[in-house]
């Protein structure tokens, strides 16, 4: 990275800056003219002196002359304005491009930091630097050369003009410049120092914020919020104080500047006025000079502001750059270099004399050597800080040893680019990270290293990327390395993904997620047909079994007592907000329909009964009791209001209550699920009328509301319901014991019969993993990461306690699956539990950073006092 801001600017935007300068230079004559013209207009056209009689061969009189000159003046304004516009846009683009380039280089560097560096610099600080700190640099870079050129040139032009009018006045104008030139830089130095301090402190704040968010569980569990807030207050206070100081000094400089600038007119009035009185200077000239001097203050101010921005930007640049050049930064070719087509790392691993030093240069690992052959299955075990994890990290080249070397398949590991280590090895650590994308995308990341096909021609976006020195890899091209995965079609890819899920014991989880997903946006009609067939088969199977009444199917003509009143009325799944449970009570269309079937009064009455039951049941509970959220139709905050409404209805009678009061009761009946709540309020008569309302609702629904609901229709797939609900096409009878288990059992049977299992697993793969994989449990995240590494069939699979969160049954299964999957290839696995080492060809026991035992499991346990026996006893 260029060491100073101006070196950076010059190296990458030289050409554009020169163009900008030229444009600026061209605009000057026009500027000069626009300064000169007023004088001519006033003295000649209006004053009447030296009016030319002919212009371009046409005869003119004084008025014509005046008009022509005024027109010329207007034209010049237009031209100057045009220049300004074009130059501004050009300048802005230039600045943005450079900012983009700067940000990209910083990010590319972050990706080359040695991993231990991330112990010293936090996520918050990096984000702060790349996002906020360099932001103003963009604007400045655009201005960096053109602005001083323009403003300086303007200044000079005006001064020259003034000098031409009268050299004494010219002198008067610049008389005080030297004083300003001396004082202001001195004051500015202080501001610079404060600026540096401010940047340092804002970074600390960013880091503290990141820390508070990451450790939020700890904060809550230890009631630490007040202390953290106090700490934030301290930080914000420091920043506030520095800022205040900066403002004071900065604006003092401006004030001083302005003050000195106003002294000069004093000279003009005195000296200039004297000259006019003496007749040495025309009145018009003095007026023009005064106007010009007023014009002078603008560029002078701009130059001062520029000077302050220059100082600030330099500091920002330096302070950012110094953070992005840490010791041990990976060389650029690690990141970018490609490898030959027939490259692989299938071969023996041989490590010699490895040593790693800690922060105080004390050895953690010293003279570590080991040999692993190409197709061996190796277990690494030992005490926690014995070094077994370091072996895996060193093998995967996530850390460079301080001395010693590793040779893999005859190649020096230290010389290989990440294209080699990241493709032909598969490393999974204990803190497997899952990205905020679908499960499928997360797995496929294991084989997306570079675009496979390149179009050749650069489109608009890539051209801009090139001008900013950004990556030319087209995100929209095909990145998936089908070759590495070992498939050549999408169907085979789907099959392979399901296989991988089975290997890592994730297939059942993804299957469940698939059942709960909606297939919204899916266009595959054949697939939807299959699910509808499953629906029919399910119903058939249900009728034949002895659990037939465990599911109440959806029937347009029948009231479903295991569904809510809302669902019964809508007979569909609400899509937007209009018909969801919160809003259905106040929806005008629904109200209308209820009135038409004569249910509105009934609903209000039922709502009142519900309210009084809720009050009866829950009024005595404390307001934060969990029953409110779990069981009550009315929240604890709303309960007092309903008590008032109930009292009012007792006094006045329901019919006599104000509409806005009685309508409050209207929303309550919708939540009733008769079979679950057993309130006995939805009588057969009311059920009949709800069915009428249902019919009317569907018939008369307008076009705009039509999109807010997806109706249940026999023979059609409901895109707003989950796959499971589509197969069920009804409600599970909640009052039948074990109903859920038994029904799910039957559903699974039908799905297997109809061969829908792969389809559903695929739907599950398309569900989102959430921020940092938050929708998955930690063990699911670990399994997903193993599948990701396995996808590209690496020559070496390296696991570092990668199954630490799996329960022991799952762990055993996954281990045995991985060992068979990697038959003939190397697996090296740092184990948490030494007893699992039995499953491997060879065991390396690491203690104190050394290999203390090496050999097959059964040989090592023969010795009574071996380290491995100690470990086994501890378990």
């Amino acid at each position: 990275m260029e060491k100073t801001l101006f070196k950076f600017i010059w190296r990458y935007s030289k050409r554009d800056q020169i163009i900008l300068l030229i444009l600026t230079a061209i605009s000057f004559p026009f500027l000069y003219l626009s300064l000169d013209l007023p004088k001519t207009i006033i003295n000649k056209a209006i004053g009447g002196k030296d009016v030319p009689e002919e212009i371009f061969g046409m005869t003119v009189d004084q008025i014509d002359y005046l008009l022509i000159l005024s027109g010329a003046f207007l034209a010049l304004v237009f031209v100057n304005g045009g220049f300004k516009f074009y130059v501004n846009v050009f300048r802005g683009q230039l600045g943005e491009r450079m900012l983009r380039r700067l940000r990209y280089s910083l990010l590319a560097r972050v990706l080359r930091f040695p991993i231990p560096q991330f112990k010293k610099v936090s996520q918050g600080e990096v984000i702060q630097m790349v996002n906020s700190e360099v932001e103003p640099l963009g604007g400045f870079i655009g201005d960096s050369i053109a602005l001083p050129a323009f403003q300086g040139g303007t200044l000079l032009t005006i001064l020259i003009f003034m000098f031409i009018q009268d050299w004494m006045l010219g002198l008067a104008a610049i008389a005080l410049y030297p004083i300003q030139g001396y004082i202001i830089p001195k004051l500015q130095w202080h501001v610079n120092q404060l600026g540096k301090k401010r940047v340092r402190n804002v970074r600390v704040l960013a880091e503290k914020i990141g820390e508070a968010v990451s450790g939020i569980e700890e904060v809550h569990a230890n009631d630490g919020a007040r202390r953290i807030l106090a700490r934030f207050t301290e930080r914000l206070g420091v920043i506030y104080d520095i800022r205040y100081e900066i403002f004071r000094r900065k604006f003092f400089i401006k004030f001083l500047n302005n003050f000195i600038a106003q002294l000069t007119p004093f000279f003009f009035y005195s000296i200039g006025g004297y000259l006019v009185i003496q007749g040495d200077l025309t009145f018009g000239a003095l007026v023009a000079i005064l106007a010009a001097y007023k014009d002078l203050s603008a560029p002078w101010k701009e130059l001062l502001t520029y000077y302050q921005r220059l100082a600030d930007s330099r500091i920002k640049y330096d302070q950012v750059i110094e953070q992005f050049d840490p010791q041990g930064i990976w060389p650029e070719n690690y990141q970018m270099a490609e490898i030959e087509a027939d490259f692989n790392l299938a071969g023996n691993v041989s490590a010699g004399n490895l040593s790693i030093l800690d922060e105080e240069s004390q050895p953690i690992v010293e003279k570590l050597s080991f040999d692993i052959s190409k197709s061996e299955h190796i277990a690494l075990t030992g005490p926690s800080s014995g070094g077994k994890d370091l072996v895996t990290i060193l093998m995967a080249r996530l850390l460079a040893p301080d001395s010693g070397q590793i040779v893999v398949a005859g190649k020096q590991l230290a010389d290989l680019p990440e294209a080699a280590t990241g493709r032909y090895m598969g490393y999974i650590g204990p803190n497997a990270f899952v990205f905020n994308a679908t499960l499928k995308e997360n797995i496929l990341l294991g084989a997306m290293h570079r675009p496979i096909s390149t179009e050749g021609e650069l489109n608009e976006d890539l051209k801009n990327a090139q001008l900013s020195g950004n990556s030319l890899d087209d995100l929209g091209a095909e990145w998936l390395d089908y070759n590495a995965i070992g498939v050549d079609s999408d169907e085979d890819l789907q099959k392979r993904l399901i296989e991988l899920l089975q290997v890592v014991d994730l297939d059942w989880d993804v299957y469940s997620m698939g059942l709960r997903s909606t297939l919204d946006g899916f266009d595959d009609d054949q697939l939807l047909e299959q699910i509808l067939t499953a629906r029919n088969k399910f119903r058939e199977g249900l009728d034949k079994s002895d659990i037939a009444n465990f599911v109440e199917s959806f029937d347009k003509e029948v009231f479903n007592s295991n569904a809510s009143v809302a669902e019964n009325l809508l007979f569909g799944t609400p899509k937007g907000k209009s018909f969801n449970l919160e809003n259905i009570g106040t929806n005008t269309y629904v109200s209308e329909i209820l009135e038409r079937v004569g249910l509105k009064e009934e609903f209000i009455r039922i709502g009142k009964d519900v309210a009084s039951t809720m009050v009866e049941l829950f009024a005595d509970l404390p307001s934060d009791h969990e029953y409110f959220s779990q069981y009550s139709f009315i929240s604890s905050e709303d309960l007092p209001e309903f008590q008032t409404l109930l009292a009012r209805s007792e006094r006045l009678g329901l019919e006599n209550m104000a509409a806005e009061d009685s309508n409050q009761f209207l929303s309550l009946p919708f939540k009733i699920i008769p079979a679950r709540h057993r309130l006995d309020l939805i009588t057969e008569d009311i059920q009949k009328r709800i069915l009428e309302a249902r019919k009317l609702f569907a018939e008369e629904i307008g076009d705009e509301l039509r999109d807010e609901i997806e109706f249940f229709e026999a023979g059609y797939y409901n895109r707003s319901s989950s796959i499971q609900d589509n197969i069920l096409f009804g409600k599970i009878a909640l009052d039948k014991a074990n109903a859920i288990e038994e029904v799910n059992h039957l559903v699974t049977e039908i799905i297997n019969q109809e061969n829908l299992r792969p389809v559903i697993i695929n739907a599950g793969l398309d569900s989102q993993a959430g921020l940092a994989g938050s929708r998955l449990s930690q063990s699911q995240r670990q399994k997903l990461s193993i599948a990701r590494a396995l996808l590209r069939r690496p020559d070496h699979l390296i696991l570092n306690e990668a199954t630490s969160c799996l329960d022991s049954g799952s762990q055993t299964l996954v281990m045995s699956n991985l060992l068979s999957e990697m038959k003939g290839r190397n697996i090296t696995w740092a184990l948490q539990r030494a007893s699992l080492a039995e499953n491997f060809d060879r065991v390396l026991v690491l203690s104190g950073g050394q290999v203390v035992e090496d050999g097959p499991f059964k040989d090592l346990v023969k010795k009574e006092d071996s380290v491995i026996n100690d470990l086994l006893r501890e378990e």
Partner: protein
Amino acid sequence: MSLNKEVEVLRDVPLFSKIDHTKLKLLAFTSENLIYQDGQFLFQEGETGDAAYIILKGKIAVLIETEKGPVEVAQLKRGDVVGEISILCDVPRTASVKAVGSVQTLKVTKDTFIQLLTEFPEIAIEIMRELASRLNKTNMQLREALTD
């Protein structure tokens, strides 16, 4: 069965007899009404128990495992409670319970029960009275059996 009818049955259960009508209604509302089919087990001997079942309608058979196979030791009907010990202490089920014909029960989970007791401690006093009376009865039966 409607909530109110359930409360009527609950009132006939000695364990809950002195509890206020509204609290019983709350108990019923926050519990599950479950129907078991003929032959279905409510729970098996040895399982960890986390709920008591109040028979609302129908009959159940209580069975104990012996070397000769399961032996029916009691038949319970409407108003009887099974499994109440396990919502008070952590013991495995002492017997298996099977539905005889279709049975409607109210399943009161341990959590629901403890919630109710925590909110309305007067119920605990009633329960203690009931348990003390049972213990007394059991002691008397034991004395009788020993002196036989």
